[in-house]
């Protein structure tokens, strides 16, 4: 066992961190704001990362990456997530849309789709959820009719982040065979978002605009060469994608940064000696520490070539509940002015804690709810019998 990064890894972190400190502007608060500078900034930053070889660092050499170790990937994730993911939507390209294409795509698809991702030039979104297919994703009904050299797609997707950024492409899950059992009639399509028949309707959230969209698909034509993987075998790609994605977000890193902000705030406000404030912040820190170690446990398994399914769910249980706890305790420490948002001159820490609390209201829902994670741990991890 070894609980330290290597000197080389630490040096890389310093280099990356210095670069990001210089590049990420003060106004950056992630993608889901009214700020129109967000999308251009994120494209520009990704191009610079690509120039330095840091964008697809973790991709295998045959697809233009440098096959960086899982630990360097972890460092990238931590530094990015601590800064509200300045890669914007493109982290998805790198973490799992690209890898899915590599594994299931044809050579033509590789040549067409991977290079723009590697250059940081393209925005993808993910069209999976539907109004009646949330936790029960496999019950999706968006229909793709096989018309020989193309498919005609009709249906509706929801909770599609970045569709209005605008996204260039969409990784779209459709029902291609309605008569097959529900997991066996699904296909994955690569949808050009400029195709006629697509309507994007933004859904505003408590955290601000642009977070989610509905995507309506009305007789949308998708050429057959944009089918990814086997027809009716899309569910295999979903499962593989989840595996790529599992430890893809270093949520704990942002929580750790926010705890640092709160420590500074408490000291500045003369609360550094307050026993209750000390107790609450130390509690958050231990939970952060636990979450981080459990993420490292999953990454250690990846380093050995194992797939940490249950371990990733355990890490996620800790990550997401930590985020919510940090938001709640943070606001409690700020007191009444914690109610004020970024932009209000009386908002402490420039409204950051308010924003963090708000943003994390759905963190135990998104990307597999807390309940789904517990089911995975109970059934796959502990071998408990499934519900009848």
């Amino acid at each position: 066992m070894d609980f330290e990064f290597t000197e080389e890894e630490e040096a890389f972190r310093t280099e990356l961190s210095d670069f990001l400190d210089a590049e990420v502007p003060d106004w950056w608060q992630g993608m889901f704001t009214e700020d129109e500078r967000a999308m251009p900034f994120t494209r520009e930053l990704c191009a610079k990362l690509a120039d330095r070889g840091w964008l697809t660092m973790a991709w295998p050499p045959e697809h233009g990456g440098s096959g960086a170790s899982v630990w360097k990937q972890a460092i990238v994730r931590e530094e990015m997530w601590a800064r509200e993911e300045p890669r914007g939507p493109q982290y998805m390209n790198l973490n799992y849309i690209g890898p899915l294409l590599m594994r299931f795509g044809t050579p033509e698809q590789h040549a067409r789709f991977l290079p723009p991702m590697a250059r940081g030039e393209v925005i993808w979104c993910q069209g999976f959820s539907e109004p009646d297919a949330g936790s029960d994703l496999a019950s999706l009904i968006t229909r793709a009719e096989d018309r020989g050299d193309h498919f005609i797609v009709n249906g509706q997707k929801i909770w599609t982040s970045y569709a209005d950024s605008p996204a260039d492409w969409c990784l779209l899950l459709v029902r291609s065979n309605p008569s097959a059992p529900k997991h066996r009639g699904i296909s994955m399509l690569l949808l050009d978002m400029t195709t006629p028949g697509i309507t994007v309707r933004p859904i505003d959230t408590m955290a601000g605009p642009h977070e989610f969209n509905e995507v309506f698909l009305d007789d949308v034509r998708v050429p057959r060469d944009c089918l990814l993987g086997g027809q009716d075998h899309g569910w295999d790609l979903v499962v593989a994608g989840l595996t790529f994605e599992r430890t893809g977000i270093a949520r704990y890193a942002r929580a750790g940064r926010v705890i640092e902000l709160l420590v500074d705030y408490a000291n500045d406000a003369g609360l550094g000696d307050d026993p209750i404030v000390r107790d609450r912040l130390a509690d958050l820190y231990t939970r952060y520490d636990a979450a981080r170690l459990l993420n490292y446990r999953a990454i250690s398994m990846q380093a050995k070539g194992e797939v940490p399914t249950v371990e990733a769910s355990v890490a996620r249980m800790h990550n997401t509940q930590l985020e919510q706890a940090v938001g709640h305790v943070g606001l409690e420490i700020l007191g009444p002015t914690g109610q004020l948002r970024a932009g209000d001159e009386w908002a402490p820490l420039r409204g950051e804690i308010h924003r963090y609390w708000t943003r994390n209201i759905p963190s135990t829902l998104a990307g597999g709810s807390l309940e789904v994670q517990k089911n995975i741990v109970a059934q796959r991890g502990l071998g408990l019998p499934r519900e009848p």
Partner: protein
Amino acid sequence: MNLELSDEQRLLADTARAFVDRHADDADPWPAMRDTGWAGLLVPEEHGGSGAGMTEFVLVCEALGRGPVVSPLIPSVTAALALRWAGTPDLQDQWLPTLATGAFTGTVAVLEAGMRDEWSPAPMSGLGALTGTKVLVPWVPDVAVIVVVTSEGLRVVERSGAVRVHDHDPLCAEPHAALTFQQAPAERLGSTADSAVVLARVLDYNAVARLAYAIGAAERALELSVDHATNRHQFGRPIGTFQAVAHRCAEMRADVDACRYLAYRAAWALDHDADAAIAVTAAKSFANDAMRRVFLHAHQVHGAMGFATEHELHRYTRVAKSFELSLGGTTRHRDRLATEIGLGSRP
């Protein structure tokens, strides 16, 4: 001992519920609310109010929280309480009748930058005309009278040009503002010593009213959760048939019920001057935590939809969080309660 509402109280609660059903979506429900007489519930009859009790006011606030109906009722009634308890007969004659009818509204300005909460000492000087900034003041543009907390006690300020208004964009739907006073003429409201007692009492009443409003919001969030759990199907069955969902709803029920009876008891104690400090502080500190739990559950039951502003859940979430962050955090209230239950240094 009897925790059942009287027939009159039940009627009042039903009336308030009916009002909410009719007026929750009004752009400005205040004109309609004026006709209800609720602004005068806590104003004595000789000043044009109905001289009812805090229990009655709590029932109204609870119903309004279900809307949530956004109105200046709670701050205005709070200002009236300060004037009633500390005002000279002249001041009472000047303000109470119009506040009681709702013709004018009032508010109370407590917080300043650097104050941990409403219970901390206010830095603003009350000697002479007022200068300085109060933040997070509940606000309507045509508010007529402002009760201001200063280091020398309570002051009354009439809305005038000497008050500059900066509108906040706060968590919940109620408008709030930062008020900057520039040599604003102010009238004394009770002696400095009296003021401290009156202010503590005003804050207690305000906390219980806000709590009742949050309870209404929490009750509504529970109803929405039950509806969603009943109607939303996943894996071929209503999600409410999953124990993880059903038990969250049951825990919400248990917490909302606890908050409600703690609030009713606090209101009763304020009406009867019976151990009010312990009752208010127990209610506030329990509810601060309970509201967090209730809304964690509500969002978890609702899924992503509850986070979208086109669904109504978020309005209640904001009410509850705003309540939690106002009028004393859990720490403050538990510390106060600890003394009440006998903790302290031994002589």
